[in-house]
């Protein structure tokens, strides 16, 4: 048998890679993809827990995560397009409208 902890460690590693991508990349699209990566890592751990606890809740939660991820991707990319139209760049370090 594969121990539960393996899955969780895999999830943690993947999550950390996502974090790294989120923080390091300049391209906003890839930043989004890093977020998806993190969501997926969480999904893995959820499914793993669900399997090992013999409960359905984890999997249900994955549904919702996927739903939210889809919504997030749609809205995020729409914002990206709207933004790009006014300000033709998607480089994270060139977008500073929030500057105080």
């Amino acid at each position, binding site marked *: 048998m594969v121990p539960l902890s393996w899955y969780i460690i895999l999830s943690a590693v993947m999550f950390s890679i996502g*974090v790294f991508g*989120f*923080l390091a990349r300049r391209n*906003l699209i890839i*930043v989004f993809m890093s977020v998806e990566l993190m969501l997926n890592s969480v999904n893995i751990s959820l499914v793993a827990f669900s399997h090992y606890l013999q409960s359905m809740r984890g999997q249900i939660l994955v549904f919702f995560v996927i739903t939210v991820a889809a919504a997030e991707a749609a809205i995020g990319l729409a914002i990206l397009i709207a933004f790009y139209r006014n300000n033709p760049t998607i480089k*994270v*370090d060139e*977008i*500073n*409208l*929030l*500057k*105080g």
Partner: protein
Amino acid sequence: MKYTLIPLLPLLSFIINILFGRNFIKDKAHWIAVPAVAGSFILAVSAFMDVLAGNVINLNIYNWIVSGDFQVSIGFLIDQLTAIMLIVVTSISTLIFIYSIGYMHGDGGYYRFFAYLSLFVFSMLMLVMANNFLLLYFGWEAVGLCSYFLIGFWFHKKSAADAGKKAFIVNRFGDFGFGLGVILVFLTFGSLDYAQVFGNAGSVVGQTINILGTDYDLITVICLLLFCGAVGKSAQMPLHVWLPDAMEGPTPVSALIHAATMVTAGVFMVARCNPLFNLSHTAMNTVAVVGGVTAIFAATIGLVQNDIKRVIAYSTVSQLGYMFLALGVGAYSAGIFHLYTHAYFKALLFLGSGSVIHALHDEQNMQKMGGLKKYMPVTYAVFIIATLSITGIPGLAGFFSKDEILYRAYLGGDTGKFLWLLGTAAALMTSFYSWRLIFMTFHGKFRGTHEQEHHLHESPKVITVPLMFLAVGAIFAGYAGIPPLLMEHGDRIGEFLSPVLGHPHGEGTHAEEMMVMASSVLVALAGWFIAHKMYVKNPELPRKVAEMFKPFYNLLFNKYYVDELYGKTIVQPVLKISDKVILGFFDAKIIEGIVNGVPNLIGAFSRKFRQVQTGLLSNYGLAMALGALAIIGYMIFMR
């Protein structure tokens, strides 16, 4: 009901005229005002008859203010004093209303004039008919209001507007004291009703009031506070400054308000409060001294003025001083008697001068008049009568009342003797400036422009007839109070008023009375003599005298610089402090400094601190990640 109608008729006239005058009534305003005030006069005569028959009316109409134990009603008291005042006010008002028909003819604000005048009569009647202090205060302020309107009647003139404002504000200083006096009366007696207050007056003798750590006699404080109001309204020193300026108003106003009625309200009030004043020597002496000093002070200024109305105005101030002198020595009835005779001859003087001014097309400077005798015989004649009366020539009204006052002053101990001297000196000056006025105006040659000379004419009947009526009053009004020396029980007015005002104390010998009378007649003649010498016989003399006593002349001509003094010490500092110190510095710098300073400080800090917000998404992400890391680290390692 009859009594209520006395003030209500003029009020009605006011309301109708002010609401409909502009668009409907226009130059027919007198058709409403004159009947109304004449109606009041008739009702007043009937009220007087009632009082003469021995009925004193005291009726409450309704409760005006009720607050806890503080209760004041609107109600009327018609006793002997009020009855006399009613007659004076309504009779002179009626005559002046009629006079105004001619005088104000063609003025753009004709309806307004009659409206205000009616309102004034209403207020004045409320003042004299009040049966409590607060209603008195109501009338007191309301006549001030009318005075404000009427002085500023020709408001497009800056001087008139200023004068109106000045009159109101100076009066406010007096009313400040008066109002406090009224409050103190209530706190002392628990009522503002005359009957109750005067009835209990004796019970508070000896009580004291603590002001800033010192104890003062309660009655004295009350009386002095009330007297403050009288000083303001009756233009006594040091609040006399508004009355001469008030001559900016139309002449009928000067005659009615600033000579015959309103300015005597102070005298009326002190007489009304005689039960209180009698209890305080200090207050009485203050009244007498203020009166005496004002009498001579104003008379000296009157000596050198050139504006015909201002001369009469200072004469009014001086005569009011006489009245207060009388009140101060306890001769209340003499004071009221003088008030009554003065009303006629002073109204006559004013209306006469109005007639002159009218004829000269609003020329008021006596240096530009002269020789009017032959153009305006009626005016001249009434002027002579009024002057004889005011200077105290035996047989005319002024003689009786003035003589009574001087005699009573003479009997009033050492202070009284001194006041008598002041009064007699003032009488000399009165005589001088009154004759000076006559000589400058009616004698000699006309000194105005040809244009004016061409138009010189006697005034129309509607003006001269009221003058004749007043002249009759100026002659015969005095026979109500013939001194005992001349006729036993001749002082009918004193007897009539005695239930309210009591009898003056002190009896003198016939010889003393004779002496006083003779001296006052003598100074009257002396005044005529000097004036005649200076202005008829030797017209160059006045200038020489003025040159000789240059500084003194200037002092008088500039009215002792009182206006300038007030301007420098009160008005300007207050305005300057308000503008520069309070508004400019305290409000704008200190309070606003703090109010705006604190946010500015926060703002400055924020401006620095907000640099943290780079606007870069990844920086925020980094911060978030670090925060999450810190929390995770804490969860893992610290627990």
